[in-house]
């Protein structure tokens, strides 16, 4: 199961990169970027998964005494938790820049951005 999920994460990263590299519309590039972002998060969570174990939350189903034998690795989860929130902040920032770009150029086509061309 972990291998299938990891393969799905890698395929999502590839699809997202393909979209970000081939599209000219800046909004579509941002959409492709969020898809790749989700793929990265899936791969990172998959690395912490162990077979036949359960979530790292102690309650009646998982008493504290035998927690080490029952739970999966909690560190990648803590990492991904913050990665998702930061990803949302980065997406908002990119969208703000896209808005400003449209305000200046009246287009969403990234190839019209030629100030640095010489």
């Amino acid at each position, binding site marked *: 199961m972990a291998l299938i999920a990891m393969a799905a994460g890698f395929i999502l990263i590839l699809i997202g990169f393909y979209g970000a590299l081939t599209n000219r519309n800046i909004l579509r590039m941002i959409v492709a970027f969020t898809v790749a972002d989700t793929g990265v998060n899936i791969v990172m969570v998959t690395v912490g998964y162990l077979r036949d174990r*359960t*979530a790292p*939350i102690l*309650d009646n*189903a998982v008493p504290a005494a035998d927690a080490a034998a029952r739970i999966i690795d909690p560190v990648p989860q803590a990492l991904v938790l913050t990665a998702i929130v930061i990803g949302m902040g980065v997406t908002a920032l990119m969208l703000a820049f896209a808005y400003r770009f449209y305000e200046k150029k009246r287009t969403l086509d990234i190839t019209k951005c030629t100030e640095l061309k010489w």
Partner: protein
Amino acid sequence: MVDILIYIAAAVTGIAFLFALYRFLKGPTAADRVVAFDTMTLVTVVFIVIIALAEGRGIYLDVAVIYALLSFLGVIAVARYLERGL
């Protein structure tokens, strides 16, 4: 007995999910896809409850509550966009 019930529920929900997915991928108009998206959010909540039952962790149900309460926001956003209210 309970296991068989969970399997039957998962099979029925999976079929519903496949139908909604077909409509989402094929759907000729935007409205078709939006309705398919809405159906898939509901089916997804059922998936979460099935996972919670199968794993025996009642604590997963919190995620289903959050999901049921928040997933309609995306549908409302696209509906407001389509009626030019955003």
